[in-house]
């Protein structure tokens, strides 16, 4: 299937098996292995990318269905010598151990911060009008991203710090 994708602001034409997931296209065809595969079933969040600005599990997206879509991966967020505020905060707060879930955590957190600033409530929001960035909110909203190293509290510390810096 011929598909045109814009990934990290660059346009790619791919010709993929219709069964190919966006995750495998990114990793194997476009040379962007920063996005990780932890389960291939939408159960771990390691493959999280932004699809037209919203977070999705790229293992659950068929590439052929995303003609014309805009995708942002971890490689589009920052590079080792030019890290985003969130990436820097993960390093500073040790918001990882093995690093395998980390691209997914960072992509997910990037989108989550926007969801909160857009006022989208969650299951634990006390008030449906104004979402806050409490630890409980972050824990709830980040629960689609598993971390077996269990850096959870430090991941949330890092997100909280990065959001402070932004403000």
């Amino acid at each position, binding site marked *: 299937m011929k598909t045109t994708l814009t990934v990290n602001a660059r346009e790619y034409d791919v010709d993929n098996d219709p069964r190919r997931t966006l995750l495998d296209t990114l990793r*194997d065809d476009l040379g962007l292995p920063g996005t*990780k595969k*932890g*389960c291939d079933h939408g159960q771990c969040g390691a493959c999280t990318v932004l699809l037209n600005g919203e977070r999705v599990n790229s293992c659950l997206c068929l590439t052929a269905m995303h003609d014309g879509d805009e995708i942002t991966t971890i490689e589009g967020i920052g590079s080792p010598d030019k890290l985003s505020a969130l990436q820097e905060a993960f390093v500073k707060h*040790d918001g990882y151990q093995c690093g395998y879930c980390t691209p997914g955590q960072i992509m997910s957190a990037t989108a989550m911060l926007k969801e909160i600033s857009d006022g989208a409530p969650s299951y634990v929001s006390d008030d449906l009008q104004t979402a806050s960035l409490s630890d409980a909110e972050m*824990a709830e909203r*980040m629960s689609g991203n598993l971390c077996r190293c*269990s850096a959870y509290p430090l991941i949330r510390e890092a997100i909280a710090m990065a959001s402070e810096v932004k403000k």
Partner: protein
Amino acid sequence: MKDHFTMDAPQPRLLDEMKQGVIGTPMDRPDGPQKVSGTAGYAADHTTENMVHGVLVRATITRGRVRQIDKSSVEAIDGVIDVITDARMIRNPAQGMAGSAPVQPGDAVHYHGQPIAVVVAETFEAARDAAQRLAVHYETEEAAVTPETSTDVETGEPETAGDFEAAWSGSEVTVDKTYTTGAHAAAAMEPHAAIAEWKDGAVTLRSALQMVRFNKKELADTLGIDPSNVRILAPFIGGGFGSKLGLGPEAAAAAIAAEKLGRPVRVVMTRQNVFDTVLRRSETSQRVRFGATKAGKITAIAHDDRVSNIDGEGFAEPVTQASQFLYGADGLSFTQTLARIATTPAGSVRAPGEAVGMLAFEAALDELAEKLGIDPVQLRLDNLPETHPMDGRPYSARRLADCLKDGAERFGWADRGAPGSRREGDWQIGMGVASAARANMLIKSSSRVRLTGNRAIVETDMTDIGTGTYAILAQIAAEALGLDPSHVEVRLGDSDLPGASGSGGSFGANSAGSATFLAAKKIRARIAEALGCAEDSLTLQNGLARGDNREAALTDLVTEEFLEEATVKAGKTSESHFSSGFGAHFAEVAVHEWTGEVRVRRMLGVMSMGRILNEKTARSQAIGGMIWGIGSALTEEMQSDPRDGHVVTRDLANYHVPAHADVPGQMQVVFLEERDDYANPIQTKGIGELGISGAGGAILNAIAHATGRRVYDYPATPDRVLAALDA
């Protein structure tokens, strides 16, 4: 130049005398920027042009033989290249430090889910499709798949000290309880993966492996080639927790297929493969007996367990490891029973033994405290033995009492109140405590350090599975050579580099760290010589060498590379003294009286684990371990079909590792200052496993305190909690 150092005597605390001041500091990981930007290269990330894709085919019978594999059933699938079976394929990953091939079953099937072939195709999609459609014909045999129905059950000789029976029958107060724990999966986020490529009769394998020195031999033995023709690369590993100690079936399959096809082959386990075939932690059944005087002196301890494994594996979950040295008694007895079953083989998963043994042991002790009417912290404090209760060895360094007292103080233990006395609406609130213990080891390790000017390189085949090896080895070399850590490059996970312990048993930092320190120390001697001062008067700091009234910049002194290698190994101190990390875990939980849901509200771990090399990475590991404690206490259980043994919970939706929402923000860790002079030349102890050892016990004891009821089958899922509440 080689040097072998054997740990035969306590070592001076040289790191404390050095002047750079980076040891112990919470330095950011040097590999951090790569990890957060997606540029750290894990095994499956290294694709090449002509690489093809392999997918493992699993057996769908419990036991028997593959009679025929019908290749024609998949030949028509576009892109399929080959269906490969080979007598050299392996049944399951090698056990840790095996150094030789695991069972190679040929056409025999030993458990449901065993890899029996690899399908290779031009695309992953084609290979996956073919692996699922492949027609396989079997001959089947009967086999037991549960410990209860196994006919091959062996009970070992009891390990004893004193006279348990006499002590038990003379006890004034007793507790005699039986507990069960479910099987556990390591479930590292990176599925097992390998890419193999051959050139001139030699194979290069990129794989997610924890112990490169051993894995190299395992692959060579599997393939029947000389180890000199094997190179293994594992610079980044997406979590291990024991599951990647030994060479796995995907690596053997990739190497065999790549050899046959003359092309690089990548085989990545599906998440389901990982659950089916990677070594699990055995389920356990444990009977714990404590006898005591009315005044609270423990007189008798027995901890008997039953675990399982498949035939052909030497490993048995060492359930009572910590029970044998935590508390003293007049008589102690430990007996293990091993049932052979035809299921996913068992092996090491983070803190084998303690992770499940201490759930039961510390819960039983809590019950004893309740019966005696003595505070559980106090009961523990009152029963710490002078020396190792089984063999009389003195402890090398043990601050367990300080951990318990300090933790109780910080956690607000004094306000705990009576069991079942605190509630908030439908939630019952309770606090629990458990000791933490994990024996400490030193494993033979080599490391090479190279210094040119004020820049150093550390080289060893040691791995960093998320533990922080890149950080701590840079800190050790930087401290010893007086450099800024950013001037130290650490190269790991390459079998061409000096062989280290690998990551396992919490011994990596002790072992590879000591070897690195000793190699750097030899460079110090050369610097002293070049400067013209005595080695013990040499001070190295910020790239300057000083001593005996001389001073020179390393950039002037070391214009040609100084290269030194050192090897460390355990010696007499491990016989004369017993070394272990110790600590105390505290947990506060809320239990919902109508749903049985348990929420962990906060946890505190106070730990004494020798010298801390990096306060930041150490804390991360300790917290990670404590969260594994939450999983083992509340959510994690691998379930198998009792008819055919197939793993039912074979993905992350069914096997419940803790998620963000299960983990409170308040996960506090406190390290008490300690040096273990008998452990190794850098006075460290292992960190990676102490956090889990006992953590789940504190949570289970908190549930008992919240509700006044006890759960004996773990994990304490809501149904089990409700049943206990209704009992």
